[in-house]
């Protein structure tokens, strides 16, 4: 029986039409992404292991605490010790590139969705679509448009990872206390000032939760993106499946998990507004927090 609704065929034809008619700008776009990822990857690979590890450990110490810093040390030792350090850096570069693009598109889009009900009515279902469509499916048109390699991997990741930051940005802005916004307007804020001085600071915990979610989803997607040759830890995971190599699967999987935990715990702290100690204080370089009385004195 033939389908009376050949949706797949139409999409197929549409993508092909796009390739035939607009190859030039697609190539330039692809080259830009390739360049960005390449620079990040080469940069991370060129840095000595101890330096990148130190950044993880110190950031962990600053944002979370000394126990977590120790955990970061352990993570780096395991990843480097099992020989997965270079692949982890490649994966990290992919995550950073994809997250960067997701935020560049997602944050303004989130603000727009928050401000306009009409835009929200279009974007919301689109986001649902992007999130529920099985992640692998994006790889096919991405690979057709840009060939195999990092570019389709990064783009498929952007599509998959962008929805949370759009959603949580718009949610956060819409949930800012109405009287706080009114206070901003009352004291003579322009719409831009309301956004910058009242709404974005008020929505920051929600926005940062969105950023954290986007990073986590990017991590899971760049592993899958190895199927189109994006490289990194995903390659090893894929190889272990193809060869039924349990050991390789465990080691590469473990590296993914450890990287995920480090990124998650560190980035989730940027959403909370609780006062925290500076890195200098954590390291004991500065005196511990001033007493309440001193802190309350005006400058």
């Amino acid at each position, binding site marked *: 029986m033939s389908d009376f609704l050949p949706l797949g065929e139409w999409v197929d034809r549409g993508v092909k039409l796009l390739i035939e008619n607009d190859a030039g700008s697609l190539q330039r776009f692809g080259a830009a992404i390739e360049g960005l990822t390449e620079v990040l990857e080469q940069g991370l690979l060129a840095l000595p292991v101890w330096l990148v590890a130190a950044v993880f450990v110190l950031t962990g110490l600053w944002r979370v605490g000394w126990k977590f810093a120790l955990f970061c040390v352990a993570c780096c030792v395991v990843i480097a010790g099992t020989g997965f350090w270079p692949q982890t850096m490649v994966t990290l570069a992919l995550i950073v590139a994809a997250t960067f693009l997701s935020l560049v598109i997602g944050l303004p889009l989130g603000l727009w969705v928050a401000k306009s009900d009409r835009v929200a009515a279009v974007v919301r279902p689109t986001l649902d679509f992007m999130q529920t469509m099985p992640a692998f499916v994006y790889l096919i048109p991405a690979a057709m448009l840009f060939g195999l390699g990092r570019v389709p991997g990064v783009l498929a990741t952007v599509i998959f990872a962008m929805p949370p930051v759009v959603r949580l940005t718009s949610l956060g802005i819409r949930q800012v206390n109405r009287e706080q916004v009114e206070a901003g307007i009352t004291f*003579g804020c322009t719409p831009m000032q309301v956004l910058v001085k009242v709404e974005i600071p008020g929505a920051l915990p929600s926005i940062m939760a969105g950023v954290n979610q986007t990073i986590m989803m990017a991590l899971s997607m760049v592993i899958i993106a190895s199927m189109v040759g994006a490289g990194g830890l995903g390659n090893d995971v894929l190889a272990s499946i193809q060869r039924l190599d349990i050991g390789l699967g465990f080691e590469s999987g473990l590296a993914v998990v450890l990287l995920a935990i480090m990124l998650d715990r560190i980035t989730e702290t940027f959403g909370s507004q609780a006062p925290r100690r500076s890195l200098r204080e954590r390291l004991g370089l500065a005196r511990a927090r001033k007493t309440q009385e001193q802190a309350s004195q005006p400058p």
Partner: protein
Amino acid sequence: MAEKVVVRNLHKVFGPHPALAMDLLRQGMDKDRIFQQTGMVVGVKDANFSVDEGEIFVLMGLSGSGKSTLIRLLNRLVEPTHGQVLVGGNDVAAMDRRALVALRRKDMAMVFQSFALLPHRSVLDNTAFGLEVAGVDRKRREHRALEVLEQVGLKAFAGKKPAELSGGMQQRVGLARALAVDPSLMLMDEAFSALDPLKRTEMQELLLQLQKEHQRTIVFVSHDLDEAFRIGNRIAIMEGGRIVQIGTPDEILRNPSDEYVRAFFRGVDVKKYLVARDLAGADVLPLVHPTLDGRSDLLRARAQLQGLAARQGVVVETGGRLLGVVTQESLLHALESGATSLHGALVEGGGAARADLGLHALVARVVQSPLALPVVDGAGNYLGAVTQTQLLQRFVQDEATHV
């Protein structure tokens, strides 16, 4: 006195087709019918009032009466559907965006029920917010903010975050933020309603004290009669989007325009707001007018009192000034002792009460003497008299209406 705010025919309709609702209103359809037919809500209907320079004007009403909408129409947090809002002579309702922003920065400030402080900023930065928005440089705005924080007693807390302060202190910051821009018009939306009664009284006193130091025009929204009477120079009572009565606390108390206004006083001990003027009856005592011929005045007055079977009369000059009180006995005594004018017959210690004498002091004076107590205004003109019986009757009546 100059009028700071003038509101004329102000309407607000919430809904997709406000013009349609306005047409229906003009045809005389009421708010409920309009809601049933079109689903649109008439928030404010034909508000007209003016607020004088330096006055505290209270908008009072139950929730849903439109008072919060009305106050937001004054600075256009809510867009007016129809009508005029003149602030210092400029029509806010017709202003373009730029003029509106300039007006808000320069002339107006608002204090909110939920305080509406920005949680990520320190108390100092919250207080300086209005100046920051207006582009005042950091040094000057922080100097000013500290000055105002001192006025509200919070200088020591400048470095704290709002969440570290109690509700009462947070609203002091809200007040300081408004004062910092030195507005000529302050809008206060249920500003003290979220505070416990003790703190509320404290804040009302602070406001009155600040008002003594520097008179500002204040429009204050409240649902609390006590508060309205304490701080309001004049009160507008709202119901269902309409202003049903405007007047001084006295006028409203003495002359509630309808059942709705009267209902406000139900369950409220209005006695504590009563003053001598409210209780004085103009026809309680017969009036005796002195003429040039003093001796015959005495005889005439005695005959007048005897004829009315009244024990006591008040002597009032032609201009309305009170001279004093006479009784049948004092008149007789004066005649016997050969006095030549009503002056000789005035009862000693018959001093009058001032019109604004509070209830407590009034009761104390009335019970001291079996005679009625005359009440005069500030110029010494006779307004009426208060008797013990009358006082008791008034209380019995009040008790009856309260039950």
